[in-house]
């Protein structure tokens, strides 16, 4: 009885728990870059462009060692290891996947902040509704870090004037 696998001429699927190549679902990715921090071989990159106001999350399968740490830390289940394994290619560019997201434009100074609009939406979903009023939150959330700090200091000075005239 022949034992040889007839592989390239027949289709083969890896078992579902096989760690194949990872893929980012662009409809779920919020661009928080948790996977970038977790990735041991730097296969995932975060490239911020503050002039154009975009953030790129770049995944290179040719650098990935399939350790699944990105899947472990992803808060929205966007990045996942598939059981797809036929990744051989003569061009290294084929191994790259890019997800480009818009950064938030600060309402105070007009420059781009270092977080994306999707991150804000996700954070607003986690924050319990009864703690903060929605109107006050909408004003503050779309500010960059510098403007937020400035506003806090101004508010503290104003408040202290009432106590110490």
């Amino acid at each position: 009885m022949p034992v040889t696998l007839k592989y390239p001429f027949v289709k083969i699927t890896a078992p579902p728990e096989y760690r194949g190549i990872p893929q980012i679902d662009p409809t779920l990715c919020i661009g928080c870059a948790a996977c970038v921090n977790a990735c041991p071989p730097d296969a995932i990159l975060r490239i911020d462009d503050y002039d154009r106001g975009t953030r790129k999350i770049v995944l290179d399968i040719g650098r990935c060692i399939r350790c699944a740490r990105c899947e472990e830390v992803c808060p929205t289940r966007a990045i996942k290891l598939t059981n797809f394994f036929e990744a051989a290619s003569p061009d290294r560019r084929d191994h790259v996947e890019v997800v480009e997201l818009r950064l938030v434009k600060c309402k105070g100074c007009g420059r781009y902040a270092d977080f994306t609009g999707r991150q804000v939406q996700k954070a607003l979903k986690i924050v319990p509704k009864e703690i903060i009023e929605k109107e006050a939150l909408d004003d503050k959330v779309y500010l960059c870090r510098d403007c937020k700090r400035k506003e806090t200091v101004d508010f503290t000075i104003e408040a202290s004037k009432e106590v110490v005239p």
Partner: protein
Amino acid sequence: MSAKPKLKSIWVFHLNTGSCNGCDIEIIDVLTPYYDIERLGVKLVGSPRHAHAMLISGPLTRQAYYGAKMAIKAMPPEPRIMVAIGTCVCSGGIFYNGYPIYRRPESGREGNEYPRLGGIIELLKDLRDEGVKVGPVIYIPGCPPRPEEIIYGIAQLAGLVEKRLSYQEYSDEFVKFRLPEGPVEERIVLTLREKLRHVVGYLDRDAILEEFMKLVEKAEKSENPREELRKLINEYSSKQRDMRIVFCMRLLESEYWRIKDAISAGKEFVYWI
């Protein structure tokens, strides 16, 4: 691959440039009767002078650099195919910024370029600078790649199959954002998910959590959710054969009520590592 090489049978030479031997074991696996790459005409030869293709593994250490260069120069000038097997050869892999790894001076170790540099790419650039002709290169990522992956790469060289991956770019303007809506508050779900990661790991946790959320949704509709959830989980456990999943369900139940009690008492509930 610019032009398809008209090769009926490829003779290969196996070159290790400092790999951990994982990929070498898979290459030997490919030559065994079960995978039997010889039916595609591939034969392992003992000298680079006889070889059409070079099966390379390893992240290209400084010591292996000179030997690898000599071996590639010793191959016959046509077709001189490079088969890069493993993540390390494709781009340096986990060893990408190690001190013994050869990198060209202009391609730094901490750059933001993509596709990522490293591995055999550095050697091929050096060879092209010297005017040495190198034929088609095929990159097979994987750590290590399965034997099927290697067969798939070599079958591409022989013209039997086409490549299946391509460069993909998505933009925020064209792809709509989707936030999955659940019956339970997001902060509770994330806390339970983090707890479950420590118990079962990344692979099974989402499936278990989804099952649990279905039961919670059913239980919250009734008048006495605590009793109802206990009843539903008992029912689920009697059907479930895997004791690990039963344990996770019981753990999730106690965690869920702990969080609910903490929220109603106004206390902190986040599970800190």
